[in-house]
């Protein structure tokens, strides 16, 4: 039915090369007016590259783009915006310190006698936003509104400026459920007006909720375009990975945990995390569950000494220790993969090789450099063991995809041969394939006798690998689940009931 209509945008045989590598290989994408078209693929499959080629942010090396039947050749995002293709990114690209109206009208403010006509601007802004079901005061600073509302303002701006095709690049990554609903109602409103929307995300549920069709990319090629009404999530995942992903299920009996390694008593930091007790044994995975801001990340940070605890005591194998900084934690053979990979994890301009050996070298001290052969051996070992995909270990780590960056960070800590590994959201923002590999790795490490603390917002994941799950709420531990108690149901209940379950 849609196919009989004229496409809003048709990209044909797009090619893009990067220094010797093929990023896009004869990629076709057709968008019809009034449809939400999901663009899917693992990290590094070419989704963002395709978008950048369409908006002109990258110069494509081959292929044609037609908008409403006539060929276009935008030289950059500004030009493609003027042609009718608007883009909204995950991180809102607006100016937080200006008002909502300013942001909407930046560059095309209504003028009167050479001055910005603020009254008319605010009135128009209110009208436009009301069209999205948003009744807010546009004369307030953008930063006074939630990320979701900022997203909608960004969309409104893109729609006002462009109006034919809207590209949403992971718009829901940092939104909660209600905010996602708000966003989706806006998207539905836009498609009803006849816009074509491209939706890029990692969340398959959301894809099925809002999209009409999906194009799946793998290694720079289109592996299929499907009408979502005709397929299941499993079909799409199969297309993305080219293999079946076995459903993660909880193993019936895990290895018996060994001796206690780390024992924290009345450990806490004022304003961050209430005092808690924790006994960590060899060969167990302690899962930390809870909502955003419940104290998951804070628990990880305070144990690793990122923020040093102001009360309580820590014992490592029975010996009292002070975990006052990451450096001392490293010396005591602890490791932490932080939540925010970009700002707290990778050192972007250093090579993958240097990033992997960084912590080991830091522990050895600068006067005792690792030998070249030792470095190569370590890097080769972990690149192979963790299947880190890279052109060369000498390339800057920032060029790797999210999943591969995460694996390199895991390699950094594994190279230090830690006894205790703390992982904060180890699978956030990475593709399905790497996701499964990291979960397998956690199980393998645990079986080898390492003790792990894993904070995650994905409950199925926690259920799959945790020996115990500690549920946090309002910066306190409210419940500990063990054995058969560990189910998503019980975790959700504990989170919502809070202390009554304790």
């Amino acid at each position, binding site marked *: 039915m849609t196919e009989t209509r004229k496409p809003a945008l048709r990209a044909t045989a797009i090619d893009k090369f990067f220094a010797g590598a093929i990023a896009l290989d004869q990629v076709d994408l057709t968008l019809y007016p009034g449809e939400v078209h999901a663009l899917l693929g693992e990290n590094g499959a070419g989704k963002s590259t395709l978008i950048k080629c369409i908006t002109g942010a990258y110069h494509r*090396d081959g292929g044609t783009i037609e908008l409403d039947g006539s060929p276009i050749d935008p030289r950059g995002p500004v030009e493609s915006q003027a042609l009718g293709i608007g883009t909204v990114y995950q991180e809102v690209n607006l100016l937080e310190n200006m008002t909502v109206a300013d942001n909407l009208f930046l560059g095309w403010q209504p003028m009167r006698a050479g001055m910005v006509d603020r009254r008319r601007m605010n009135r128009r802004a209110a009208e436009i936003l009301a069209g999205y079901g948003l009744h807010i005061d546009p004369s307030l600073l953008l930063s006074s509104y939630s990320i979701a509302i900022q997203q909608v303002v960004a969309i409104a701006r893109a729609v006002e400026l462009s109006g034919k095709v809207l590209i949403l690049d992971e718009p829901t990554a940092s939104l909660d459920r209600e905010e996602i609903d708000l966003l989706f109602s806006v998207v539905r409103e836009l498609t009803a007006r006849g816009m074509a929307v491209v939706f890029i995300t990692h969340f398959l549920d959301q894809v099925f909720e809002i999209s009409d069709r999906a194009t799946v990319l793998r290694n720079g090629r289109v592996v299929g375009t499907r009408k979502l009404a005709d397929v299941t999530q499993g079909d799409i995942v199969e297309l993305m990975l080219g293999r079946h992903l076995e459903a993660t299920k909880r193993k019936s009996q895990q290895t018996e945990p060994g001796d206690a390694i780390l024992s924290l008593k009345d450990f806490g930091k004022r304003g961050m995390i209430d005092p808690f007790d924790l006994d960590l044994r060899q060969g167990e995975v302690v899962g930390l569950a809870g909502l955003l801001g419940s104290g998951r990340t804070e628990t990880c940070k305070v144990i690793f000494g990122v923020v040093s605890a102001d009360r309580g005591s820590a014992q490592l194998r029975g010996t009292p220790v002070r975990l006052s900084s990451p450096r001392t934690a490293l010396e005591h053979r602890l490791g932490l993969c932080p939540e925010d990979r970009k700002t707290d994890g990778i050192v972007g301009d250093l090579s993958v090789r240097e990033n992997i050996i960084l912590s080991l070298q830091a522990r050895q001290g600068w006067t005792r450099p690792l030998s070249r052969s030792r470095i190569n051996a370590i890097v080769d070992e972990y690149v192979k063991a963790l299947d880190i995909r890279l052109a060369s270990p000498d390339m800057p780590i920032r060029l790797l995809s999210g999943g591969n960056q995460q694996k390199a960070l895991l390699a950094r800590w594994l190279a230090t041969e830690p006894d205790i590994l703390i992982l904060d959201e180890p699978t956030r923002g990475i593709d399905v394939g790497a996701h499964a590999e990291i979960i397998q790795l956690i199980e393998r490490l645990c079986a080898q006798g390492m003790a792990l603390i894993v904070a995650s917002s994905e409950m199925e994941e926690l259920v799959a690998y945790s020996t115990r799950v500690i549920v946090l709420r309002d910066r306190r531990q409210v419940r500990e689940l063990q054995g058969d108690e560990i189910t998503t149901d019980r975790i959700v209940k504990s989170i919502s009931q809070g202390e009554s379950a304790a």
Partner: protein
Amino acid sequence: MIGATFRRITPQLIILGIVLLLNFLVFPGFFSIEFQNGRLFGNLIDVLNRGAPVALLSIGMTLVIATKGIDLSVGAVMAIAGAVAASVVTGGGGWFTALIAALAAGLLCGLWNGVLVAFLRVQPIVATLVLMVAGRGVAQLITEGKIMTFLNEGLIFLGAGTILGLPTPIIIWLAMGTLVTFVVRRTALGMLIEAIGINETASRLAGINSRVLLLAVYLISGVCAATAGVIVAADIKGADANNAGLWMELDAILAVVIGGNSLLGGRFSIVASLLGALIIQSVNSVILLSGMPPEFNLVIKALIIIVILVIQSPTVKHALYLLRASAGSAVPEAHAVGPRNSPAKETRS
């Protein structure tokens, strides 16, 4: 390894070559070197000799900038070190004592900067501005407000003597450059400095002791500045608290920038900074040799520097890359600039 280093410094080598050629054009005798009275003479030797202070400063400045910092105090530290050395020899001390005292003063200045930056978390530009202003005052206190002259042969030798026919300052900056390069590249210091310059939070979380490293780079910078200060004082046989090293911190920063090191920190090359220092000195030499009225000096220097920086700008670099790529016949590169309607299917293998 050697190949990578060479590729890294190629732009600086080319620019230095061009500026030296300019020297030759305005003064045909530029490249002639003579051996007289046991010493090499010639304009080229002068460039290497006169460039010593900025070269020395640029060594320490490179490391400081690699950590995303900046050291504005080096000029003032030069004045302090010169004053300390002069006061030691005028007080009857030997040249070696004077040198050690001056270096100790440099270390102390570096310690002050380093503590402010690494432990009290003052922004580097503000922290070192304090010593930039106060340092000259300290130097004046030491010299009691006048130019403190001396006749100590040993000390003068450091600025005006020769070793194996080469002026001592050349030997000193070459030695210091080699030593520091060797230390940072043969140990893990260089990589760790780059790591904290690129992402300090991540580096700290990876277990790197960023405070100690930050302190270390300011200490090294202090020692380099003190050495430069001693050379300048020895050269004029006196410590001039008001003028020694005046504005030289800016030349040092410029040398680092011409050396292609980013002011945002991260990857660094000391060799490239040293070439940057030589380029600046060669530019000074062109202006001097061309016989231009001295009032033109600063303007012409600025123009030449702007040209150098434009040549190194990412935009121009990219344009040059495209030019090279279109000249070459490699398929992927040709694609980068080739006509977009080229039959992609046929050219791909």
